[in-house]
């Protein structure tokens, strides 16, 4: 019900969720789409087609240096990029919820410590650390990569959750629950959590954007997992071939556009929700 209202009320949320959903659908349908484009061939297979073909009805975006259909490459890369971003978003949101919750609910000394750590993580430049960790992780795959990214992007979610818990904690009905001697657990699960859902969603969207940003940073440097294709790697490889001089820039245009759509979609979703659920921000932008 709330989300229906949200969808109706917030243009940002509407646009953002449509973009994001379209990307997800595209990712889910990648298998039949690839089959439609190049049949049963493995999109990663070297030498399936002549190299560096120009765009045509057959190959909408042409082929790359090793004769792979660029559309199919993008199609198999999208789900991997999305999976890593969302998985990292989910892990860091979980972490962020726990830390933000403890911090906001307990307050006092625990809050001070957790908050200092959170602020530290937000303030320090994390990409260098992500680069180092990723470059030195053995058998780097989607899951490990998501863990690495999540380790550095949870503070965003933690901050959102904490401030919300702080404000909920002061609300009269919680005070009432406290006075009636309900346990922490009952208060948390009975009173606070149900009111948190939108903020968890906001935290998730923001953490996913953050993770996706870091993921792109990592892969355009050529330091992502080399055993799977993701959107950043297509860009990095295209630059490695020197496509600009060869006049084959179309190879990296598609992944760039998809990534921008992903960032934009998720950011609009989180901003839309923030404005909707947060009275202080509502109607500002």
């Amino acid at each position, binding site marked *: 019900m709330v989300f229906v209202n949200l969808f109706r009320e917030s243009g940002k949320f509407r646009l953002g969720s449509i973009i994001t959903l379209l990307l997800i659908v595209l990712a889910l349908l990648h298998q039949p789409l690839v089959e439609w484009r190049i049949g049963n061939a493995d999109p990663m297979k070297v030498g399936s087609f002549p190299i560096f073909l120009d765009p045509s009805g057959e190959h909408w975006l042409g082929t790359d240096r090793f004769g792979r259909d660029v559309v199919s490459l993008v199609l198999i890369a999208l789900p991997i990029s999305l999976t890593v971003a969302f998985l990292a978003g989910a892990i860091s949101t979980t972490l962020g919820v726990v830390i933000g919750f403890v911090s906001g609910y307990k307050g006092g000394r625990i809050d001070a410590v957790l908050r200092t750590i959170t602020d530290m993580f937000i303030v320090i430049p994390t*990409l260098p650390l992500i680069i180092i960790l990723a470059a030195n992780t053995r058998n780097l795959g989607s899951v490990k990569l998501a863990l690495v990214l999540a380790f550095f992007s949870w503070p965003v979610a933690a901050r959102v959750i904490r401030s919300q818990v702080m404000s909920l904690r002061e609300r009269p009905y919680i005070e009432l629950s406290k006075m009636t001697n309900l346990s922490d657990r009952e208060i948390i699960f009975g009173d606070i959590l149900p009111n948190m859902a939108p903020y968890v969603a906001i935290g998730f969207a923001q953490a996913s954007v953050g993770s996706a940003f870091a993921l792109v940073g990592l892969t*355009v440097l050529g330091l992502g997992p080399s055993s799977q294709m993701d959107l950043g790697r297509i860009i990095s490889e295209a630059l490695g071939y020197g496509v600009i001089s060869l006049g084959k820039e179309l190879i990296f245009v598609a992944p760039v556009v998809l990534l921008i759509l992903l960032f934009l979609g998720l950011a609009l979703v989180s901003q839309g929700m923030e404005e909707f659920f947060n009275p202080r921000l509502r109607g500002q932008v």
Partner: protein
Amino acid sequence: MVAGNPPATVLDDEPAGPQLSAVPRKGALNPTARYILRRLGLYLITLWGSLSASFFFFRMLPGDPISGIIAQLQTRGQYSAIEGSQDMVEHYRREFGLDGSLGEQYVRYFQNVFTRFDFGPSVLSYPTASTDLILRALPWTLVLIGVSTLLGWLLGILLGTLTGWRRRSRWAEWVTNTALVFSHVPSYFVALVLIIFLAYRFSLLPANGAYDASLQPEWSLEFFLSVIKYATLPVLATVLVSLSGWMLSTRALVVSILGEDFLTFANAKGLTPRRILTSYVMRNAWLPQIAALGMALGSVVSGNVLIERLFRYPGVGNLLVDSVVIKDVNTAMAVVTLLIFMVLTINLIIDLCLPLIDPRVKFTS
């Protein structure tokens, strides 16, 4: 928030810093001194925490850096002309401070860092100290980050104030929506488009290096202009993105201030719109952005790594990636330490200065 975007909206949170002294305590110190002491203490703890964390982070990375170095020597240039030996391995383990227990290494490392500013020799360019490598690259990064951050921030809050003030006009709407898109584009992508256009297609600006190779670094106008010319594209790429972020958040602040009660009073009192803008709106919208600038620095530094890489700018970002690739622990750690130190210190300065310029932020709670 990693690849160079400042937060596009200010979260529902108190301005950082001053509120940290939330718990008033009995004591002889006056509130200002207490706040400063507290903030300094917090600074030192954060610094120590992040440095220790990064020390252990680096030491616990899998794989043996020394045998990696020796092996890389053997495969370097593809031709195996060098045979490694146990003597070599042990010698360099000592040289790079990797012998002894983790605790010993920790104590020794920080002794060297704090007493002699010595981060150990680099692997990238042994035996040059990693500190030397960094000091050599740092000025370039400071120029790049400094100029692009300040420029993006200033232009962003100016434009944000304007679009917030004229929020109902057609152009403001356009600018806002364009900024909304731009603020979520990694500066790396913008840089790519700029390079294609301005450097390759029209050969207007160089896309490689820091200044013309025929010049010597000196205090001359020619050198200065050359540095500006070479920094234009990387700065432009960063500024286009960061100004969008700052613009949006400033606009949001301005809009919320315009809705506040005291402005209604001001209106009622018959203050001119111009006066309202300069004395109320600007003041109240701009000051929080100073604190936000400090918070955004980390992501600026992160995004800068990619930009430096793309433009082969001789700064610490490039140095960092190079050192990571060959697992030059000393250099990578020194770069990270330095970046953390810089960001934390700037934040400290901002927090300490903010109460002086913003009457709303008090040293006491």
